[in-house]
């Protein structure tokens, strides 16, 4: 029996309840109740077949409309409720994102190492090569090849750590090992010339050793950067240009350098180099930064290079000094003690 009134009121009732539903579960239950197998809607649909042909069409049209009304109401409510529930779920998952997290704790580089890499990168950008040599070095490379003869007064002024030994004899007849802890990265100069030949543009960064006790401004183990260029037509003007470029790379566009006459056995003419440091405490000023000069002909001869054809320049700067200046560090102890708090101040890229 197709009961038009009963099915219409059932569907109307169902739509009303759907609109009041508060959860998708309730919604699903209502769909089963009003559109499921046992519902008035299903019963009415099934009974259409038993109607006389003239009644079938109208009943069919009614059922289509009721079904569509119900479906629209359901879909609208379902969308609404799903959004609501998702929102609730997200709210429930909300956390305090300001809580500190560090699942992969970062270590740190030592600022001396990163500064040396910066210096290396400067030279690489200029088209130079980076060279190195041994820290325990023969006296020949550290002294003799650099024009410090066995009795040269400057050789005694180097505060050298000597390596113990009694198998060898130096040129002055003193027994020893003929080995030292290298006093300067200049010891790499003649190694570079011998192994690489000319023209040569090399920079060496590394550890050097002098018998100075550790205090606020000295350390027996420190780092230098040595630069050596040997080519035809190099002059002291090229030395000044390279120094200025390095100063700018290290200390900013206002930095520059100044040369004062000095003496090193391995350069002639020789100079002390002062750095114009704009951020100097108490106002910009000159600060001693390193030594330099034109390569002494005897050094070139030590490497078998004709000083009448080739000229060269060399300079050495202290890496610690540059770091102390750049970062306003007042005590050398901080650089050498390896306190992790010191290194951790520096961002890894710095």
């Amino acid at each position: 029996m197709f009961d038009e009134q009963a099915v219409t009121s059932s569907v109307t009732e169902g739509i009303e309840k759907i609109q009041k539903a508060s959860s998708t579960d309730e919604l699903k239950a209502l769909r089963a109740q009003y559109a499921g197998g046992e519902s008035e809607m299903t019963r009415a649909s099934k009974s259409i077949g038993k109607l006389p042909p003239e009644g079938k069409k109208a009943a069919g049209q009614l059922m289509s409309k009721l079904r569509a009304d119900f479906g629209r109401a359901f879909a609208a409510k379902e969308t609404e409720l799903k959004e609501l529930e998702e929102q609730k779920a997200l709210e429930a998952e909300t956390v305090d994102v300001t809580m500190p997290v560090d699942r992969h704790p970062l270590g740190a580089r030592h600022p001396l190492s990163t500064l040396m890499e910066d210096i290396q990168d400067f030279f690489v950008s200029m088209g130079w090569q980076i060279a190195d040599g041994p820290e325990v070095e023969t006296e020949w490379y550290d002294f003799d090849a650099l024009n410090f003869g066995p009795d040269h007064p400057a050789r005694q002024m180097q505060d050298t750590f000597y390596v113990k030994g009694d198998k060898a004899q130096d040129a002055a007849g003193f027994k020893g090992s003929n080995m030292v802890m290298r006093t300067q990265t200049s010891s790499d100069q003649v190694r570079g010339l011998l192994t690489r030949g000319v023209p040569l543009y090399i920079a060496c960064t590394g550890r050097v050793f002098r018998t100075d006790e550790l205090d606020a401004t000295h350390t027996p183990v420190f780092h230098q950067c040595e630069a050596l260029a040997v080519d035809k037509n190099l002059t002291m003007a090229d030395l000044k240009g390279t120094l200025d470029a390095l100063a700018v790379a290290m200390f900013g566009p206002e930095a520059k350098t100044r040369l004062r006459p000095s003496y090193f056995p391995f350069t002639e003419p020789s100079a002390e180099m002062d750095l114009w440091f704009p951020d100097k405490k108490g106002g910009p000023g000159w600060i001693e930064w390193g030594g330099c000069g034109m390569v002494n002909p005897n050094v070139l001869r030590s490497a078998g290079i004709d000083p009448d054809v080739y000229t060269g320049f060399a300079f050495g700067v202290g890496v610690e000094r540059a770091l102390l200046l750049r970062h306003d560090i007042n005590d050398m102890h901080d650089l050498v003690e390896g306190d992790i708090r010191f290194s951790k101040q520096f961002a890894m890229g710095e």
Partner: protein
Amino acid sequence: MPIVDIDWLKEHVEVPDDLTVEQLAQDLVRVGLEEEDIHASSVTGPLVVGKIVDFTPEPQKNGKTINWCHVDVGEKYNATDENGNKVPRGIICGAPNVGKDELVVVALPGAVLPGDFKIASRKTYGHVSDGMCCSQRELGLSDEHNGIILLREQGYSKEELDALELGQDAIHLLHLDRPTLEINITPDRGYAFSYRGVAREYHHSTGRPYTDPISLYEKHVPKAPEGGIGDVEAKIVDDNPLHGVVGCDRYYLRAVHGFNPTSHTPNWMQRRLTRAGMRPISLAVDVTNYLMLDLGQPMHAYDLDKLNPPIVIRRAHEGEHLTTLDGKDRPLSTEDLLITDSPEGNEGSRIIGLAGVMGGLYGEVTAETKNLLVECAHFDQVSIARTARRHKLPSEASRRFERGVDIEMQPAAAQAAVELLSRYGSGEPSNNPTDLNNTVDPEAIQFKVTEVKRLVDLDVSVDRISSILEDIGCVVAGGGNGIMSVTPPPWRPDLTMPCDLVEEIARLVGYDEIPVRVPPAPVNDTGLTPDQSRQRWVSSTLAESGLVETLSYPFVGDADYKTFALDPESMAARSVEITNPLGGDRPYLRTDLLHTLALTAQRNIRRGLDNVKIYEIGHVFHNDPSAPPIPALPGGVRPTDEQLAALDAGLPDQPLHVAGLITGDAVAKGWYEDSREVDWSDALSRVRRIAERLGVEIVVTAPANYGELPSTYEAATWHPGRTALVSLTDGTWIGVAGELHPHVIENLGIPAHSAAFELDLTTLFDHLSDQPLQAKAISTFPPVKQDLAFSVEESVTSAQLEAVIREAAGDVLESITLFDVFHGGALGEGKKSLAYAVAFRSSSKTLTAEDSEAIRASIVEKAQEIGAQLRS
């Protein structure tokens, strides 16, 4: 280094009246004489001249005697008595040389002496002491503190003493208001170890008129007789010349007769010596010291009557000894050059001095000396340098001889000495000098004037070059064809090559005049080498993994070896040793980074830091006792390839290492996870990460399975069951990782289970290919994923089982992960279960169920060979 006193400097060069030491420093640094320090007195007044009117010695209970003095310090500063009369001040003075009517230097209340010593009226020894009579030391003048300054003894002339007024400002009188400049002299400028040289450099810097003092004295020098032997016979007998050079090439003597040994050194000379840091001793000694500072010529004064000529300059004989002026007995070397005389006709039998370094006790000038012999010599630089080095006896004389003394100034310097000795000591100079002169004139340098442009890029005219070289004392000839013949002055032995002359020209023109240019380097083969890049990668990988980079000193000692449970004796044999270590307790260079890295960890932990995780990249040093001796080769000549190889062959192996030390919690306690203590795996995972970063396959082996252990593996340092030896696939050992032995951990005082690793980067890098990786094609066929759990004996390692699985599966194995391990239980005693997740994927087809079953079967079969049974 030398002290420059403007008051003295202006004897040789004109200086502006208002010249300050700061300005002087600036003027001198421009030509290469660097400021070392400025010495200014910190004394502030009132400091005045006073006269001891009377004094009363008062013995004290402590055995000391103090003097209650009344000191007249003039109308202005005297005390006022109860009647309003000006009276001398009462001052307590403990000095033994207090005397009535002595003129003294008095610091009055309100004065401040060095060390922030404030003078005030104070009650002491039962009196009110109203000032202080000062010693030299109390005023910072010298170390002299045997008594107070008695102005009578300061060498003032009668006129000067009479002119002193009581209450006169003593700060000015004693030159305390005139600071001095200490300068650094580079080793090439020996002549600047004198006022003669500094004044010349001041002239070069400022252009102010300079007079060479030698040129003044030279005019009065008497001629030496033919043959050179004057009043005193002398001979040079060098039977062992060093480097082919006779030890003494000029020996010059002047006698002074009738000297008054009680004569005083004039005040101006005493003051200049004191301000230069030398103690006035006696007129004869002071004159020689004064002229050494003034002219740069070391000289010696002997008591002529004690000497038995001939004086013989010779090398020491085997077994000879000398007690030098400092009272030390020194065994002599046959390379030491001596001054000797000839008692009882035995030529050269008595040693009177170590030539150019220090005199002996015999022959010294004493308070009885009436006849003097002044010696001015020139010695071989090398001979003096070696003797000073051998006897660890650097003296004012040796410092000058080592750097080179003017070879022509000896007669003039001696003339200066005898003039002073006769003026202030009433002696009569003899005009019959002895002069043995074998000096060789400086060689002329053939100087191409274009060298100036070639080396320093300065455009300097030939005329200017010539006038600069003449100004520094050179004799210049020729030049028309662009080549000058330049003879350096006798005081500049450092000028031997054209580049030396270029430096002189450049520094006098001014380094600031040199243009600035950046040289274009030929860009080929630049960039970091692969190994330089790799070192950076290793470092950043470790830092990214939570370790902090540190840098430690490479020095270790026996105590450090013991900390690491190593035998100091055998370690010493393997270690490079320093002859002159800073601390005697750490004479060796580290063989392992870990030994010094651990000290850094300790320091951090002692400073209250937890979970210290650090690493270091640096060199270690391995002594090879059988290494050949390193030859001594001359500089300035390219050694042969064989010689170069011999240099390197003697050097110790010094590879680059990386080491890490990981302590405390591996995972720190947080709100989101529990903490986890560090163990062996934290070290191994860093090592594996490094290998992965470098793209190298490593083999990890327990020491027990390694076979013959590497000789430098220090087993006692490591936990025997939680340590791995790390090698490359070709068997090359590159390092070790794991937990430190509990004993070592206890010795270090670091947390239990602390882990560490150390790898030889030099060896590792040597085995890496610099060729680009050849990539495999990526298969897009689907994978087959399976879990395989095996039961094996505990003795079988996961590496062994994994190797078997890899071999059996072949190319289709895409990945293998050990995801579960358990021991014993249902498996039975001595067994463990290892469960792997594996993925197979073919590059050519989709694997069928039959395919994967076949692979699985082959793995199971192969696993049985090492006793592994498939569990599931």
